[in-house]
């Protein structure tokens, strides 16, 4: 039987999700860089133009999905790197909790920002 060198649990959901998000992010990250540095230039950014893009539901949806998948992929990658370095037991559980909270805060803050551009008022705090 072939050796396994992966730090992921065999047949794990996080293993699969890391690869599914990777496939999505390859395309969307390339698009994001291309659109905002080569089609539009970062030094010519205006609130109005950013808002104009975010007010299109397809762009808004893509960016929200981008935020969620990038956060998952990045934070899950960090978690796996730490496990690979030998993180175990209570410290592993504490790190998992801390990274989960950090991810949640990042996604909420990203959504608040996206909504500010799109002019969406969901809740007083969001």
């Amino acid at each position, binding site marked *: 039987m072939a050796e396994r060198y992966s730090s992921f649990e065999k047949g794990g959901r996080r293993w699969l999700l890391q690869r599914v998000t990777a496939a999505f992010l390859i395309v969307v990250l390339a698009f994001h860089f291309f659109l905002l*540095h080569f089609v539009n230039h970062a030094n010519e950014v205006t*609130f*109005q133009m950013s808002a104009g893009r975010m007010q299109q539901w397809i762009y808004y949806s893509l960016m929200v999905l981008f935020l969620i998948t990038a956060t998952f992929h990045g934070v899950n990658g960090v978690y796996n790197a730490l496990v690979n370095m030998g993180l175990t037991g209570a410290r592993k559980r504490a790190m998992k909790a801390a990274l989960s909270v950090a991810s949640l805060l990042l996604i909420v803050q990203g959504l608040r*920002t996206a909504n500010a551009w799109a002019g969406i008022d969901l809740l007083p705090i969001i």
Partner: protein
Amino acid sequence: MSQSYNRGRIEDFGRWREFSAGMWAWIFHKFTGWVLIGYLFTHIAVLSTALTAANADPSTIAAHNDVYTQTIRALESLLVVRILEVGLLAVAVFHILNGIRLLLVDLGIGLEAQDRSFYASLVLTGVIAVASVPTFLAGVTF
């Protein structure tokens, strides 16, 4: 039947002279990953100026004097930010290209070309980063 081997300390960088192409690919992928997730948190923090800008007077927004537009423009006026952006592009391009390589390896495609595809990722990253320099430096005052 599966066996386990003592591979020594995985992250023993003192052994760097012994590292194979695959080991370097793994280290570069991890390093670029740390940079990208660090950047994501910073990116959202900077973009959060849009929350304040959204409440600005419409005439302030129309004149591009809102805090979001001014913050981005102030950052973009700095040469060091432009250089960091080229670095960020290089990091992202390598992570993307090596990521494609990893997905193919996971699917069992091109297993015999793993070393060559890593070198190709490095070369292509270098070419794209160099080619992007004029775009990233456009309009900056030295």
